[in-house]
């Protein structure tokens, strides 16, 4: 599904290249659950952003579903991401001015889904996550765990084949975190969604079937979850 070859990312600082990622080679098959671990500054988030196509590598080859992402124009790339990738953030990043229902609905609007279909799909999703009673609340009225649930529901509403999560439990207490990780395991196991998550926690990393360890922009080792 994903093929990264010799991906590097650097920033020019005073004439020197400051590498964030160096020669990363990674391949992920459909249906996998991959955790990326590493200390702060090891390039985990950058790698995830490149995978999610909201950041570009400085060099290297990037194939997604057999298409050469590194050759695409921005608009094409955005479209490809829009169709296939869902994002979950550590800080949830819900739109404060929209309520739960509307937050979940937003990606469908950008997918030009008809209003009646949107209604059915959002209702389904609310049901599945058991947050029907909260649909009219605004993000500020929810707990962190509930916000993250909405964030995941929103990421899944357009049925992406790949779910990217950037420290999804980072702002949650351990019980909420566990619930989210259980949800991920279920999504991967029962619904076959490919998941790549970045995490700090050894424990959460074990939910993935593969664990990629990053250090100073390079893949240090890979272990089985």
């Amino acid at each position, binding site marked *: 599904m994903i093929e990264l070859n010799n991906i590097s990312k650097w920033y020019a600082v005073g004439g020197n290249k400051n590498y964030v990622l160096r020669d990363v080679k990674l391949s992920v098959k459909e249906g996998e659950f991959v955790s990326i671990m590493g200390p702060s500054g090891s390039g985990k988030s950058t790698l995830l*952003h490149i995978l999610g196509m*909201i950041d570009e590598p400085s060099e290297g080859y990037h194939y997604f579903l057999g298409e050469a992402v590194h050759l695409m124009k921005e608009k094409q790339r955005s479209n490809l991401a829009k169709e296939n990738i869902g994002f979950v*953030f550590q800080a949830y990043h819900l739109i404060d*001015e*929209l309520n739960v229902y509307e937050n979940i*609905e937003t990606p469908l609007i*950008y997918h030009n889904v008809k209003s009646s279909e949107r209604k059915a799909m959002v209702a389904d999703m609310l049901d599945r996550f058991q947050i029907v009673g909260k649909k009219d609340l605004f993000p500020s009225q929810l707990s962190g765990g509930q916000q993250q649930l909405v964030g995941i529901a929103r990421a899944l509403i357009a049925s992406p084949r790949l779910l990217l999560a950037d420290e999804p439990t980072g702002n949650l207490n351990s019980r909420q975190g566990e619930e989210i990780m259980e949800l991920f395991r279920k999504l991967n196991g029962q619904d076959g969604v490919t998941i790549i998550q970045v995490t700090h926690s050894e424990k959460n990393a074990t939910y993935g079937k593969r664990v990629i360890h990053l250090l100073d922009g390079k893949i240090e080792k890979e272990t089985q979850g």
Partner: protein
Amino acid sequence: MIKNYFKVAVRNLWKNKGYSLLNILGLAIGLATCMLILIYVRNDLSFDRYNKNFGRIYRVDSDINFGGTHMVLAVAPDPLGPTLKRDYPEVEQYVRFHDLGGIMVKRGDENISETKVIYVDSTLFDVFSLPMVEGNPSTALVSPHTVVITESIALKYFNTVHALGKTMIFNGSEPYRVTGVIRDIPDQSHFHFDFFLPMSQDNQSRGNIWLSNNFNTYILLRTGTDPASLASHFNEMINRYVGPQVQQAIHTSLADLKTKGNYIRYSLMPLGRIHLYSNKVGEFEPNGSIEFVYIFSVIALFILLIACVNFMNLSTARSSLRAREVGIRKVLGSMRKALIIQFLTESILVTAASLVLAIGLAFLLMPYFNQLSQRHLRLGLFTDPWVIPGLILLMVLVGGVAGSYPAFYLSGFRPIQVLKGKLAAGFRRSNLRNTLVVFQFFISIVLIIGTIVIDSQMNFIRHKKLGFDRDHVLIINNCYPLNDNARVFKTEVLHMSGVKDATMTGYLPTSGNRNDNSFFKSPSLEQTGAIQMQTWSIDEDYIPTLGMGIDAGRNFSRQFPSDSTGVILNQAAVKLLGWTDPVNKRLYTLKEMGSQDQIVYHVVGVVRDFNFNSLRQEITPMGLFLGKDNGSLAIRINTDDISGLIGRVEQKWKELAPSQPFSYEFMDDDFNKIYQADERTGKIFISFAIFAILIACLGLFGLTVYAGQLRIKEISIRKTLGASILSILSLLSLDFLKLILIAFLVASPVAWWAMNKWLQGFAYHIGLSWGIFLSAGILAVLIALLTVSVQVIRVAGSNPVNALRSE
């Protein structure tokens, strides 16, 4: 999708009430003032357009240079109109107006003074579109002793508009039959007469005198006629008709006159240009001026721009708060275009809210504005088909312009950067925002300078020494009905206590009669020694009563019977005549136009120059002659019991002229009337300038709020390191002060140029001193500092822990 944007926009506005209020209010004030100005300007531009033949009507104006005097007149000789129609087939019709001053109209037992009275040719209705309610337009003004009146006058005298065939009594005894009632003349007309009397009654209209200009002459050209081609024939017309009369009057040929720089020219003034471009001698009413249309349009545009700039600045300043949303939406799959549309929708929504508020504001302000501008303007929201589409266009335009920058700016954010929160640094370094702030201050400073200059000039006019003393002078108007009792009246008034002096004449420096005539230095009436000057008829008490000064010689005196052929010149006349010792010199003139008889005057004295026109014009040559003109009685008073004195004067009046209206005014009021138009436009300018500055302040305030918010961390760190409030104030103000300085440097020359041009319109005006510019600059700095410090003190005074903890 729009529904989603709409929801977000409304909730966003609601969530940030303070910001929204600032934004909507600023824009609303801007739009409201802009609407008022546009209505005013549109009103000014639509003068005389009620005429169906608007584009084909021209007034024939005269431009005469004779004996060193240059006259630009809105009037022409009596034979000109008929001659044009007779000799040139392209002239379809003509109509002449001749002022006849005022009349007394009888209503019951009283006589009412009416001044909007005019002699007019029976062809009036062929040229101007004045709809007749009753009567036959083609015959109404043919026979003598008939009159056409307006509906208001019919109502005033007959309590009904159906006045056709009724009789009115003018000047006590003359019966006139009403042969037509017309609709009241629209506000937007360059004349407003109530009584139209037939020209057939005016003997002067048949005088066939080409050398006297007293008739406002309008012609209607045939469709498709080029006015320039008609005007090209004017020279041959002058040679044919004016030449022989000049030869007869002063024994000189037209060609000879021309070689000495004299000329007579006629020109065509299109009807559409009269109200805004014509300010000649002999206009019916003081006209508007195109300068002010330009000035006001520019102010309207400025105000709108300032309001838009506010909007843009506030939106982009707030961008850090919206940036996260942009980032999320982009990650969720939004294209840039969708985001641009979203932000434009938002800004048009804000504009729509502002527009609704602005319409309300304009409604509230309209009565004050009408009072200020002396107009009867209406918003005309539903009556004028132009207004609603215009407003919608304005809304889309303003919303689009104001929203475009934030829209493109915000939608251009890269999602990972904004989601990581790396945006705040952008605020201080935005060149565009700085440019916009400079632009705003540039406009504000120009307007402040304009306000100071206009105000000082108005003040200068009010206090200018005019060469006569206009305070404590009571004028009894229109003393003609006193006839032979006029002298008695004057003597009786002089004996009253509280009266210091009195003079009887229709020629007063502030208003009243004006008359000019040609004089010559030698009995051979040679052109080289000719002078055209004001010829005023006064009495011996004139100069002392009005407090004028004698420069040489003496005042008229009853002890010198020969003073009946004496003249007192003003300094301007002496200068033009080139005399160093004018007393006892002689001046020659013709007894009347066309005759051979001469009158010889000797100079008895020179009066110091005094202003008798508006200060827009230089003092022109003048001669004062002894005469018996009963125009009005000017009384110098030295009592505090003014109303008691007026009562006694009125009592005396009623004894001497029973059933004649008594009216009075004070000379300083009369003087102020000359400047009413200037003063009014000045006040309008100042009001709008203040609005503009206010809006700019609102914007600046909003900007500091966000500058403070974005730098709150920096401020907090500085505070924990021990910075005082004052040092923080200077830190934040310095940014703005730099911008103001740049704005000041750009604004000063622009304002200097514009105000200098405006002042050139006054023959007597103040100078543009550095003080004016300096005080404008200081004022701008003060306004800015005040606005900034309100906010800065709040930010600087807050507890730094709160700000630092949020990280």
